[in-house]
């Protein structure tokens, strides 16, 4: 890279856990209800109300932390993070401060197109907290009313904080894609960014090499990014902007306060919001209303065993055990657990992982996409695709006609035998084929002479004639036999 700096990126991701009810009360977490209809005295902080931890939320966070290779301490507790805001009805958020439920993990990222070498992105910590409500500012027609919706208040969030280990927008994007895939695999979140189930903030600065010294620029936090693509674009915009700013001001890390900038997706720029003059004092202290959570090592082990194969494990299995390219493995794994299961069924039963991969990544995925179906709804079950591959491999089904058979199986919901019958495709007996080729050679002495003089490509001219006589012949075999028989005749 020719640019004179390295971009240093750390991400903070808030993930809404897929629980039915809120973190400290039994209100529903369903998205889209009428404002303030999913509330109770506990989540709106009525005097005298008390929180009770939703065990399910803790289990989901534990699952995630284990999948992120985090250490899970035996003891974790709840803290109050105190600040005033109208959508924070208690005047504090129940969160975790100095003893989070997990820390020191990592997530492996790679790029199938090799834009960057595979790497581990460190996870500083992942902790559970409750969400705040939503402020709606209605400034239309000169009004300045603010309205508060507390439906979201108390929804369980897992805050995942990465190390500043990413060095490009592509790496950040890969981290988010891989994280989302992982969370989907272990079914802890629906990761829907539109509904706020997954939110990303980025911390960015530059390391600039100058006169043999490394200069770090002030850290900027970017907010308001509403898609992974927006994160990528914001980071691509922000790095050169910081470089220009450094060239103008020469300001280094520590010489300017940490700045928060908002991403404007339409204009494609980040804009300064407010400077944090000093870090806010949230006056954290342990929440006396909640007991600490004790997680015995055995529970962590049980969670680890229950996780099953994660995306990284599956990729490894597919490339090492099935000899797939990283690219193909990635395509399969990114489609989710059940598609990988489908592939494995076909690969194992057919004994031909390469053909299985071609069929699944090309034909199956294309049809699923067109039909907007999931693999569980797909019309060609794994055993039938195995039958199709077997028919191709044993020569019953010429590979050129296989797509036709596949379409018919899909359309009729039939197996390969029925498709072959319908298409009148029959296996051509080897002796009949030899007779056919011998007839053709006899009728085409020029071709025989060409082959004998070493022009083997001349054999191709017989394929069309052979197919005319019998549409089921395997073109490759015709060519092979023509060369073999013509050469024998000349010897």
């Amino acid at each position: 890279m020719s640019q004179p700096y390295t971009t240093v990126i750390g991400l903070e991701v808030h993930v809404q856990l897929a629980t039915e009810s809120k973190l400290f009360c039994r209100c529903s977490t369903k998205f889209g209800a009428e404002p303030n209809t999913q509330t109770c005295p506990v989540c709106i902080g009525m005097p005298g109300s008390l929180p009770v931890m939703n065990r399910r939320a803790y289990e989901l966070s534990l699952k995630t932390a284990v999948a992120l290779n985090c250490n899970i301490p035996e003891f974790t507790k709840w803290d109050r993070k105190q600040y005033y805001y109208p959508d924070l009805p208690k005047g504090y958020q129940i969160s975790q401060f100095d003893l989070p439920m997990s820390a020191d993990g990592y997530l492996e990222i790679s790029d199938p197109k090799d834009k960057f070498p595979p790497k581990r992105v460190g996870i500083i910590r992942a902790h559970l907290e409750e969400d705040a409500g939503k402020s709606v500012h209605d400034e239309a027609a000169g009004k300045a009313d603010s309205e508060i919706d507390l439906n979201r208040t108390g929804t369980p969030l897992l805050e995942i904080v990465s190390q500043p280990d990413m060095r490009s927008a592509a790496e950040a994007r890969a981290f988010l894609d891989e994280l989302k895939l992982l969370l989907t695999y272990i079914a802890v979140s629906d990761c829907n960014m539109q509904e706020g189930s997954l939110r990303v903030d980025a911390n960015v600065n530059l390391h600039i090499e100058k006169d043999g010294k490394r200069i770090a620029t002030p850290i900027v936090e970017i907010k308001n990014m509403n898609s992974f693509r927006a994160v990528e674009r914001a980071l691509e915009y922000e790095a050169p902007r910081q470089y220009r700013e450094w060239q103008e001001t020469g300001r280094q890390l520590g010489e300017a306060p940490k700045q928060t900038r908002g991403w404007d997706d339409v204009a494609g720029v980040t804009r300064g919001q407010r400077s944090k003059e000093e870090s806010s004092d949230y006056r954290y202290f342990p929440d006396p209303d909640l007991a600490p959570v004790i997680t015995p090592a055995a529970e962590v082990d049980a969670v680890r065993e229950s996780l099953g194969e994660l995306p990284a494990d599956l990729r490894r299995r597919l490339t090492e055990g099935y000899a797939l390219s990283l690219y193909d493995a990635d395509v399969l794994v990114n489609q989710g657990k059940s598609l990988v299961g489908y592939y494995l069924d076909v690969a194992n039963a057919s004994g031909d992982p390469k053909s299985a991969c071609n069929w699944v990544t090309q034909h199956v995925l294309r049809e699923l996409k067109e039909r907007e179906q999931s693999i569980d709804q797909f019309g060609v079950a794994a055993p039938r695709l195995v039958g199709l591959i077997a028919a191709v491999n044993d020569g019953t089904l010429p590979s050129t006609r296989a797509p036709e058979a596949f379409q018919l199986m899909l359309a009729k919901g039939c197996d390969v035998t029925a498709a072959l019958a319908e298409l009148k495709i029959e296996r051509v007996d080897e002796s009949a084929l030899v007779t056919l080729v011998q007839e053709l050679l006899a009728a085409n002495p020029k071709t025989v002479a060409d082959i004998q003089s070493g022009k083997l490509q001349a054999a191709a001219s017989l394929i069309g004639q052979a197919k005319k006589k019998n549409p089921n012949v395997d073109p490759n075999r015709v060519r092979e036999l023509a060369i073999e028989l013509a050469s024998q005749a000349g010897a």
Partner: protein
Amino acid sequence: MSIVDRSATELLKSLATSELTSVELTQACLDRIERHDATIGAFLRVDGARALDQAAAIDRKRRAGEKLGPLAGLPVAVKDVLCDRDTITSCASRMLAEFRSPYDSTVVGKLKQADAVLIGRTNMDEFAMGGSTENSAFQPTRNPWDATRTPGGSSGGSAAAVAARMAPLSIGTDTGGSIRQPAGLCGIVGMKPTYGRVSRFGLVAFASSLDQVGPFGTTTEDAALLLETIAGHDPRDSTSINQPTPRYTESINKPLAGLKLGVVPEHFGAGLDPEVASSVRAAIEIYKSLGAEVKEVPLPHGKYGVAAYYVIAPSEASSNLARYDGVHYGFRADQSGTLAELAAERQELIAAGKTAAADNVDSPLVRMYRSTREAGFGPEVKRRIMLGAYALSAGYYDAYYLKALKVRRLIRRDFDEAFKEVDLIVGPVTAGPAFKLGEMVDDPLAMYLVDLYTVSANLAGIPAISLPCGITKAGLPIGLQLQAPPLEEERLLRGARMFEAATDWHKMSPRITRIDANGKG
């Protein structure tokens, strides 16, 4: 002996035999309130019609032979800090003067289940912060034994109501002594259970790790009766203890054989009123005469209790009271002039050349918070919020809050050690009898020291009881405190009952004298 002079236990028997109806009893209490509460000020609100309706309904159920709860027909007064569905829970604060809770606290729910008659809501120090009930935003409460004096606090209304025989039973809360101290100063029985024994759900929080609900009555038996009604595990309170509640009333009359009683030398140091000291020593002699072995046990860290308490309790309070911001419920300061006011402030600063300061003038939202909290809270509440916010601030946390937690652990350890040697610890509740109203309002530190003998039980989470053990020459009650290991309420009540059975102090009741406008008796 008039109806209202009888204990709750006796009244329950009369009600059971229909010798007395709940309506008659409730009416007698209402009459008593009518006659004396203008002087005493124990109640913030009395809903006589609702109480009589409840009483009549219970009488009907009794006549129909229906199953009745354990307090059927007994009037109970409740401190105005426990939510009672759809009625006001003010915490004696302007902030919640009009606040109606949409739900029942667990304790109020249990009282309703027990068929108690909820006769009224009692006065208290605002948000339970104080030791004299003078911090109520609405009215002071006066001591029935001497109306120029305090009943103590913060549950002063609940203690005075029982002492003045306006209700046979009442509910209080105790964060640093707020049940035991007023019980002592009013000559009745008051008990703070083990932390977690009684649910805090629906108790408006002052200091969550210290707050505990408990009973007032004129006898230990009555306290046992009310405690066994309100105690028990509550899944809605994560700090509630999951242990069965013993039947305290069934065992209370069994004396403790071979009782080993601990006396703490530090409790008899400088500052203890001589009359209180001699009454407590006399009480110890009575225990000896009942066969108890008395032993000195040290509680070396007790002297740091008040200091630790006044870091921990305000810290939690500063957080618990943050929700009173005028946004969602409760009081909100009038904002009609806010925008003009802010504009004027900005102009004035700009005119004075202070442009930076002009930029820092409050936003309308922040001004609303500020003026709401300024007008909604009284001075003691503000003082504690400031103390707590300071103690939790970055840079001070370790020196104050964390240090106080360490002291708290040491105090608990002292008790654990002491209870290896003795069954109960006996001592004074307060250093002196009831003080004059207004005597300490300008001296918050002196007021904080009133909690000297009581805060340790809250910090350690152990149960403790206050019961009458004497009267001063001036005619003021003196209280005796007993403390027990965690969850040993049964032992505590039986030990207290031994003393009560051997003495007549609990049979004394105040002669209430009306006071004139100058507060002179």
